[in-house]
Each structure stands twice: as structure tokens, then as C-alpha cells.
């Protein structure tokens, strides 16, 4: 029961934070909200028994991605600092599109009959994940290493200040 309430709380918390991400005038506040939302989602993972995913979410997302984003905000702070208008002119259209998307999604979800498994969430053993990763999904695992390499190389190439010859 507590899980359930906690889940509700986390959902509301994450949703409110998400709204904050897209509405705060100050981009820095938005980033903080993103962190809050990521943590909220991480909490949901935890409650649902996806412990390893929770860990990765906290480590990579909050610890890595969010830090990067904050870092970037700082670097570009001269503009980001000022609380100038952060939304563009297509608010109405955007709202309509996201509302319709939401409606379509909810419609599809409600219309779909789910045969759910009853009972508490099964906690996933990290070892199983490891095995699965290295037995069933070794190819994407290997490929993603190349992807990271490419991204690394690319990020360096792009971010580096060229020395003028």
C-alpha cells in the first residue's frame, strides 16, 4: 500500500517537475526540475523492482547527463542567466499537438485490454541482467561501445577549439 501511495506521489512529483522543465523561464531552474523528474522516475524504477535500472538512471542520467547539461548551462550562462522569454510563438500549436498526442495515447491505452500479472513487482536480479546482457544482447552491447567511441571522438572534434594554423 505504501508502495502504491509512494508511486502516486512520485508520479505526481515527476509530472510536476516535468511541467517545470518545460515552463520555467530560468533555464537553470528547468534543469533542476529535470533532475527532480529524473529522480522521481528513478524512484518509480526502484519501487517497481528494477534496481539496476534505478542505479543506472541515478548514475548516468542524474550524475552524468544532468551534470553535462548544467555544465553547458553554466558555459552559456551569459544568456541563460537572464530570465528572458523561454518559449517561442508556437505555444498554442504545440499545446494542441501534445494534447492530441496525449489524447490519442490515452485512447489507445484505455482501449487496449491488458492481461496483467497479479502480485507484487518482482525484483530483478542484477546478475540476471548481466547474463542477459552478455548472452542475449552481446551484439548491441558491442556496437554501443563503438557508438560511444564515435560519440566521444565526435564530441571532442566538435567541442575542441581549433588551433589556427
Amino acid at each position, binding site marked *: 500500500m505504501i508502495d502504491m501511495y509512494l508511486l502516486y506521489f512520485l508520479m505526481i512529483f515527476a509530472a510536476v517537475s516535468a511541467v517545470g522543465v518545460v515552463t520555467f523561464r530560468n533555464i537553470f531552474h528547468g534543469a533542476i526540475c529535470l533532475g527532480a523528474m529524473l529522480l522521481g522516475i528513478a524512484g518509480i524504477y526502484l519501487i517497481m523492482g528494477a534496481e539496476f535500472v534505478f542505479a543506472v538512471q541515478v548514475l548516468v542520467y542524474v550524475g552524468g547527463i544532468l551534470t553535462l547539461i548544467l555544465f553547458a548551462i553554466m558555459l552559456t550562462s551569459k544568456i541563460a542567466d537572464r530570465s528572458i522569454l523561454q518559449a517561442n510563438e508556437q505555444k498554442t500549436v504545440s499545446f494542441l499537438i501534445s494534447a492530441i498526442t496525449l489524447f490519442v495515447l490515452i485512447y*489507445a491505452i484505455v482501449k*487496449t485490454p491488458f492481461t496483467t500479472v497479479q502480485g507484487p513487482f518482482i525484483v530483478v536480479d542484477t546478475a540476471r541482467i548481466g547474463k542477459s546482457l552478455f548472452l542475449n544482447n552481446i*551484439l548491441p552491447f558491442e556496437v554501443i561501445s*563503438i*557508438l560511444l567511441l*564515435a560519440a566521444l*571522438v*565526435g564530441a571532442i572534434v*566538435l567541442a575542441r577549439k*581549433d588551433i589556427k594554423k
Partner: protein
Amino acid sequence: MIDFSLLKIELLLCGLIAILFILDLLFTNKKPLHIVAIAGTFITFAAALFFRDTGTTFVGSFISDDLSIFFKILFLLNAFLVILLSGDFLKKNPLYTGEYFILLLSATLGMVLMASSSELITFYISLELMSISSYILSAYQKSNPRSGEAGLKYLLLGAMASGMLLFGISLLYGAAGTLHYAEIAGVISAHAASPILYLAVVIILAAMSFKIAVVPFHMWVPDVYEGAPTPVVAFFSVGTKIAGFAVLMRLFMTAFVGLKAEWGILMAAISAITIIAGNLLAIPQTNIKRFLGYSSIAQAGYVLIGLAMATVAGLSATMFYLVAYLFSNLAGFAVIIIVSGKIEGDKIDDYKGLWKRSPILAVCLLISFMSLGGVPPLVGFFGKLYLFTSAVENGYVWLVAIGVLMSVVSIYYYLIVLKRVYIDPPLDTSPIRASIWENTALGICVAGTLIFGILPILFFDSVVSSVQTFLK
């Protein structure tokens, strides 16, 4: 067990990337890198042509069949030709030469894997490998603000599309409970399709439409084509598109084959809109790369016709057309790369009097454009012919009518460019010369356009039989 014999091409590419990486670190003279890259890609290409082992491995997430080998050949040919054509660009942007090849080849690796992946995680990762490399390559010309803008636009929109794709895949996972194509197909045929499954199909189709750049998911194309370095544009105008089609073909013809009726009509609608809008939008363009961007959008619309038919004829037409597109489009880009290397401009007006400055380039451009416009006896015409026949066969006469009418429009805008090339007097009469590598690439493309146009028989049968085995 992992059957490495099926992975020759992938391993060769990885090895090539590694070699380039090491060489890049070891030597300050970057010139040999180009040769190594050319040689390496050619060897890989030759290997792809030569080794034709089929089978599955990695617990069914990797499949090597005629279809994937066919596409791999195209990707490697594309990479090979683009690397041949990159010399001038690298001479002008000498920093990060090694990284350029690494990124280009990792994108190629992503494409190659996309063609072979038969499971969604692998597919997704390879897609991202291709995409992220492409994003970086688009922004490669750091001194040019347009290049950065192109990269950023591509990246942001690409990320949105891939976010959407992920959401779609998650819904698909919810509906099917598996990520393997074959198993998804089994689930779909066993159960009545649920709304989220439909939604998943639509979202995945939309996300892939972004990659193959069809209307209304095409809008990144002109800006990115205009801003990104020309060899890179050439690379992903062909590679990304073919990869997208390879995935669409495998995913939709295996996993979603049970919903053929639904997605067929969707694709037909998309292709109709794409053909119309792409061709219309190309008319007022003044920048040749942007122009080719729109033309490539329209081409994608044509290719989608074959896919929408979901028959042997349709799929083989699609594959044939992709070959046609590869040769014709790269021939056009080759000319543009050579010309812009000399005149430092991408305006269509810069091509005035090209005929006087380099008759060979002018003729190549003519052949390329006429092939893209679907004029016999060039390969593009046969591509269109097969596509249209497959569509007529399935009763999509209206689609063929649109396609045929708009190809007349396409001739119009190709002629606008050719008018500059042939009729207008040149602004500057100095001749334009190309390097040996560039000429080789151009020669291959034009030869392909001509030879496969006159003798489509050369590979058409093998295409048909590979589709037949694929569908069995």
C-alpha cells in the same frame, strides 16, 4: 554460439576503424589515411561482394541473408565512393582527417548492422550509431556556421524522432512482449491487433520516415543538405535513406507483415504526398545542394511506392530503385563536389556554362539528372518503371498517375539546372579539373547509371530472387 563467418564485413569495418584510429594517432601526416581508407573500404566492399554466407547468429538478433548482403554492398559502395570524393574536402579542412574517416566508417557500420539486425535493440543501437555519426559529420566544417547549424538541426530533430521511435518500440514491446521481428510477427498473427500495436506501428513508421526523409518528416533535409559538407551530404543522402529502407523492409515485411493492409495504405499516402511536395519544392530552389535535397525527398517518395505494395515485385522494384538512386544521385553529387571544389559556391547559378568549362562534368550531370528524372534508357527510368508496374499490379493506379505526372515536374526542375549548365554562357571560362579519385568515383557512378540502365538484367534477377527467399 556466435557464427563469426557471418560477421566478416562488420569485423572488417571495425578493423578498418581501428587501423585508422591507430594510424591517426601515430602519424602526423594524414595523407596516407585517405589511401588506407580507400583501400580498406574497397576491400570490405569486395568482401561484401564475394562472401555470401547466410544464416543467423547472436541469438537471432543478427541475420545475414541475400537481402542484407545486397544492402551491405550498397552501403559499402556508397562509403567507398564518398571516401573517393572526400579528398578535396579534407584538403580544405585538414584537421581531424582521421576522425572523419572513423566517423564515416562507423556510420557505415551502423548502416550495415541495421540491414542485418532482426531484433529491435540491435536495430536501435545501430540506428543511433549511424545517426550520431551523421550528426557529427554534418557539423564537421566547424568554420562554417551553416555546417554547425545543419548538425544541430539534424541532431535535435533526429533526437526527437528517435525519442518517438523509442516510445513506439516500448508500446510495441507492451503489445508483443518480444523484440525479435520473427516473434513479433508470430504474436501479431496469433492475436487480434490492439490499439497500442497500431499506434506502435504508426509511430515506428513515422520515426523511420524521418530517416528516409519523406513528407511531412522531411523538413530537416534541405537545411542539413545545404549546410553540411558536400561529401557528407552525398554520404547520408544515399546511405541513410537506403538504411532506412532496409530496416523498413525487414521490420515491416517480417514483424508487421500481418498488418500489411494498414501500413500499406499509410505508406502509399505518404509516398503520394512526398512525391508531390518534394517535386514542387525543388522548383524554386537556388542552392544546388538544397535542390538535390528536395529531389532526394521526392525520390524517397517513389521508393516508398514499392514498399507500400509489399509484394515481391514491389520490394524488388524498391531495391532496384535504390541502386538506381545510389548511382544517379552520387553521380550528381560527385559533379557538385568537383565543381564546388573549384568555384567555392553552391548556387545553381554558379553552374552557368559548365558545359564550356568541363563538358564531361556537364554530360555526367545530365545523365545523373535525367536518370533521377526517369528518362530512358537510364537506370532511373527502369527503377521507376518497375515501381510503377508493381503499383499498377496492385491497383494503385492513382499513385502511379501522381508519380508519373510529378516526374514530368521533376524533369522541369532538372532542366532548369541543365539550362544553366548547357545554355547559359559561363561567368568564368577557366576549365574545371578533377582529381583521379574524384574521376574514378564519377566514372563508376555514371557507368552504373548507364550500364544498369541499358542492361538492367545484370542484377535484376538476383534482386528478385533475394526478395523471394526473403519473403519465404
